[in-house]
């Protein structure tokens, strides 16, 4: 369960995020949509304590994020390439994350086996460092690494961007499977309305930092969103 209270973030006079209250129950698959500058990445950065809120706070499973670090063991994320260590090979990176999250090599190998299809033979055993992989392949590595160690809260910023169609479809499958578990809360942001309505039970629309729509996904949701963004 994630609770947001009076959360604002200001840079100078500009308010980039202002959420009065928001509750995300455990196990929900939560989609965040909005145009550029709507505050999606700001919200995720606040969830990871990478920036400090101007007012208010976020509580993740009973842990207030900006005052305790106890949320780290059960939370994982992939925001951008600053979550990758460029001079490691993908294998080394996975093992590194695994070791940090208390998983040995065998555990990680077992998890990776399930993603062989997703990797499409372009990740493992390539004799390349992460910095030399293409943007799309880097993203695949980051997303899979965020699943290591059975996290209860997974945050993915724009996971569909930069991926090829086949991988996008596979990724949707992966997120849906995670979402079906009652233990795992998945937070996804996207510009792609079709993808996000397909994988998320609930969609929240941000506009210029304000929460403007909060929708339980249904057949009409896509249309509603298209009207919102089109008009």
């Amino acid at each position: 369960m994630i609770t947001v209270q009076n959360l604002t973030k200001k840079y100078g006079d500009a308010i980039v995020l202002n959420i009065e209250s928001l509750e995300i129950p455990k196990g929900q698959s939560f989609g965040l949509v909005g145009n550029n500058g709507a505050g999606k990445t700001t919200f995720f950065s606040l969830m990871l304590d990478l920036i400090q809120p101007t007012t208010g706070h976020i509580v993740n499973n009973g842990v207030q994020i900006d005052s305790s670090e106890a949320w780290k063991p059960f939370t994982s994320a992939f925001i951008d390439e600053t979550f990758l260590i460029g001079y490691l090979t993908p294998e080394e990176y996975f093992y590194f994350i695994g070791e940090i999250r208390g998983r040995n090599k065998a555990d990680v190998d077992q998890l990776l086996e399930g993603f062989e299809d997703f990797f499409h033979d372009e990740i493992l055993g390539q004799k390349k460092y992460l910095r030399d992989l293409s943007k799309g392949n880097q993203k695949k590595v980051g997303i899979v690494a965020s699943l290591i160690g059975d996290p209860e809260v997974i945050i993915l910023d724009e996971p569909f961007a930069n991926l090829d169609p086949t991988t996008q479809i596979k990724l949707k499958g992966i997120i849906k499977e995670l979402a079906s578990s009652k233990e795992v809360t998945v937070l996804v942001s996207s510009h792609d309305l079709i993808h996000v309505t397909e994988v998320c039970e609930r969609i929240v629309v941000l506009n210029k930092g304000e929460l403007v729509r909060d929708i339980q996904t249904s057949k009409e949701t896509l249309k509603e969103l298209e009207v919102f963004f089109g008009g």
Partner: protein
Amino acid sequence: MLKHFLRLEWKSFFRSASFRGNLVIKIFMVFGALYFMAVFLGLGIGAFYMIENQGWGDPLVVVNRYMIYYLVGDLYIRYMLQKMPITNIKPLLYLPINKSKIVGYSLGKTVVSFFNWGHAFFFVPFSVVLLVEGYSPIGVIGWHLGMMALFFCNNFINVLVNNKDNVFYMLLGLFSVLGICQYYELFNITTYTSPFFDALYAQPWMALFTWGLLIALATSAFTYFKRHMYLDAGLAGKKSLAKTEDYAWLNRFGNLGTFLKNDIKLIRRNKRSKTAVIMSFFFIFYGLFFFTGAVEAYDGPVWKIFAGIFISGGFLFSFGQFVPSWDSSYYPLMMSQNIRYREYLTSKWYLILLATVASTILASFYLYFGWDAYLAVIVGAIYNIGVNSYLVLWGGAYIKTPIDLTSNKKAFGDKQAFNSKTLLLTLPKLILPLGVYALGHYIISPTAGYIFVGMAGVIGFGFRNKVFAMIESIYKREKYKTLAAYKQKA
């Protein structure tokens, strides 16, 4: 066309992140540059008379004898520091600009670099002195032009061999061995090379050869780049073949081992960190200035401790100083992963500890200068571990300069690393141990001085947990600022 290029250049210079510093540092930089110019100028004028007064023989002949080392040294410095012209080409490629023009401009840019004209500060005054002292004007002009051509040759050699590490290190190794051979009078390469440099004076027309060589190198660099101006050829970054490495023997250290493994990979696989480690290796020999009595100013007993601190602390100063900036490119990961600051800091501390111990062992050749010298190294190492290791980690919390691991730019000092807080922290790093030693040395005895410094280290070591808790809280406090600073790529 040139107008456009120059305008771009102007903007890239004045808008670069490194230029937007505060005025004081800019003034310091200007003074620094002026200082070095003055030194070179003084050397150019003074070299002639110095050599003459010392009675080493004809100054021109002496200079010519060592010229080969000067040239190779110049090539080495270029290889490490001179930026390649290809970096800013990419956005120009698809524009309607002639390829020859782009290549010509890029190579032309390397020609006007400081690495070329900087040498003029030595050669021009030296040549003028030669003329004043009655050397044949034609000969001096021939020699001067020949030398000039050779240094420009270096420029193009560097352009051509850039990123060919094997060739480069082989050359470096070869000349180091030759230098040692010459010192011990086993084999003297200069007997083969100096006749050529002498000939430039004796037969001035020989300078034409060097200019011919220069033209040949310049054209081959030109054609090489023109032919390779594709994203997957000459403009491609070098991609090394990656190998997954395990370092399973570090597993026994638990979480600490995880970070140590990562740090070892960090050092081995990135150009910038490799340079830092190589530099720290050279620190070991820094003590030779002190113990051989080569520099008179360093003869006071207190300076031995200064030397000891530097000999064992090379890694501490060149690598430790920039913790946590080494991890700047993935700092958000480190901050949101299941990592405790304490473990992160401890692993860096162990790395410094290991390197300090290794340097101390490598420095055992100082025993040649007596126990006294080596004792200074050991005491310096204890102080480095017990006190300085904390101080560099502490100072690191305030250095918020992102490091680009893949390039060597700024490897030799970055102005942002010199803010007032880090400057204040260097005082206890270097001055305090000198003071502590002096206290023991002058009040009781030299041995007491050593004991005092050693004790300071041991006491510091004893407070490890306390100090770490303090540093940890500072890192936490600075966390958001650090994250924001690392986001702005240099």
